């Protein structure tokens, strides 16, 4: 195989995954959180494709496509929630949503 080995792809994948995790944990706007979530999912896809290439097995690509579908569905629902929240005049701040407190 030409280019860097699989290890390099994996390293890139994990770096971006941790960046995405940081974003989910640190940002207060639900919109940005969703975007960071997309990044995490994509980095996971990258790892899958890399392994699929390493073992010459097409199943990894199938898995990655399925993940993509799920991510899209999740983005739909999440954005719908944000729209409903803003319609109910709820503050778009993750820290303010504390009904689970106690």
């Amino acid at each position, binding site marked *: 195989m030409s280019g860097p080995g699989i290890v390099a792809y994996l390293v890139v994948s994990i770096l971006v995954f941790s960046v995405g995790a940081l974003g989910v*944990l640190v940002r207060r706007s639900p919109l940005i959180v969703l975007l960071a979530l997309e990044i995490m999912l994509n980095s996971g896809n990258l790892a899958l494709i890399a392994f699929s290439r390493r073992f010459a097995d097409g199943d990894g690509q199938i898995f990655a496509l399925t993940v993509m579908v799920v991510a899209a569905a999740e983005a739909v629902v999440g954005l719908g929630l944000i729209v409903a929240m803003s319609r109910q005049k709820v503050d778009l701040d993750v820290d303010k949503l504390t009904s689970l*407190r106690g």
Partner: protein
Amino acid sequence: MAVAAWIVLASPAAAVALIALAGGRISGRVAGWIASLSALTSFVCSLVVFSLLLGENPDERAGHVSTLFTWLSTGTEGSGSDSVRIGLTVAIDPLSVFMMLVVSGVGFLILAYAVGYMHGDDEERRYHAYKAVFLFSMLLLVQSGNLVLLLAGWGMVGLSSYLLINYWHHRYQAVAAGKKAFVMNAVGDATFALAVFILIQETGSTDFGPVFGSAPGAIAQGSTMAVLVGLGLLGGAIAKSAQVPLHTWLPDAMEGPTPVSALIHAATMVTAGVYLIARTHSLFELAPDIQDLAGILGAVTIVMAGLIALVQTDIKRVIAYSTMSQIGYMFVAVGLGAYGAGLFHLMTHAFFKALLFMAAGIVIHALAGEQDIRRMGGLARELPLTYRAFLVGSLALAAIPPFAGFFSKDAILASAANAGTLGWCLWSAGTIGAFLTAIYTFRLVFIVFFGEPSPFVREHLHKERFEGPFAMVWPVSILAVLSIVGGFLQVPGAWSAVDDWIHPVAESAEEASGLTAWLSALAALGASVAGIILASRFYRRPTHRAERLRRRYPLATRAFERKFWWDETYDVVFYAPASGTANGLLRYVERPLFLGTLRGLGTGVRDLARSVAQLQTGLVRAYALALAAGVAVLTVVFVVVH
């Protein structure tokens, strides 16, 4: 004969069952008749047994036993030395038959009287049922053929006494009195039981025949074991018979209805101690010091109770102290070994004491429950028949011939005169006692019956056709007759029916005879007559002589009125430490340890939960952080493990 003896025992038990099962379907009167009828049945069957026993040779009369089944058996099978068999055994011998006759006869009269006395009470049926329970227990006590069954009957009479003393359970004095009686009796029960244990260990049996037969061989005379057995039995006897020092419960027991006082606390239960000593006399003879102690305690009680009775103002309490005093005479008798004389006095005392209580009951009933003699007076005019019955009883009590008390008391004093130095001491106590008895008895007669009717009497007296309900009057009449003629059963110097009858079971000590006997009789009679004269001088007409005497001797007066401070002493010695310990334990051990622990457990869990709940901030980000941190940790774990 055995069948008749079992019927005697079973009849009151059947009455109890019948009254209890019938419940509300029968009226109180009917319950009373059932109880009385059962007592009559017992009496008749006792007469049957008596007559059958009469037909036998005197030597063969003792020793009949009839066992229904083995109630309890311990140890190995067979008659090895380890096994003890206790059967439901009934003894049919002269002593038990004598007691059966007295208990069932007087019991029947009193039960019939109670039908009239308790009429109209709210819980009349309960009363008659309890009375029947008592009768059953007392018969069990006197009829039992072994020590354990005797102890069972012993405990059950204590129970019936408790139930009947606080029959009016809404009065707190009655409840307190019942408790006091039961606790003091329990002390006696405990010592009795200890004595039984020692006997089981030494002789391997509890049946009368084997125990009394082998005891002289198994236990040496005067040894520690003998003394312990004697003390144990004596303890039980003095608790049940209200002798010094376990006597303080008897006056308080007057809280119960008058027929209860008549039956239990005059005629029968309190005499159980005397019966016990007579029955186990062979064991007492192994510890002669203890037997002397019984006599001494009896003498002390005679004098002390007599002194206290001089200042009592409740009609029933005077009679109660007089009971205590008379039982002291019986203890003197059995303490000296004069079993026949003691039992004879038991019988005559049952007659005239029950008579006195029942006559007093008619007076109380007529005055709607008043018992304070200071409010009474002049009742002889209003209730002449009752007055005469009371007079008969008082004369018998004061031992004036030809009334019954004279012969029995005289027999006891004659035995005392014949018994050496100790005997003469006891004789003096007995004579002083006779003097005191006459005084307080006739003090009562003069205050209650003589003179003008007091204002209280004029207001509250209500008479019926026979001065009281007929049901109350006829038993009184019968007892009055018995008090007159009963004494002729044993005339010292002439014939001694009771002594001879009891002889196969308990050989009585010799009485004095000849000149000593005559002198003793005259001295006692003189003391009684002097007492009556003194009482008439003080009380026959309203005078201030009694008041002046009180003021001249204030300390003595106070001692008599405070009953020689026995109750106060017991309070300090026993009650205060016990209740102090109980309260201390409650406050310092139970509350902190148990309640504190439970409460601490609850609050501890709640605090823990509250501190854990602080983790639930509601912040989504925090939860997500927890997830991420967990993943970080798990990664390391997985790598390391692999």
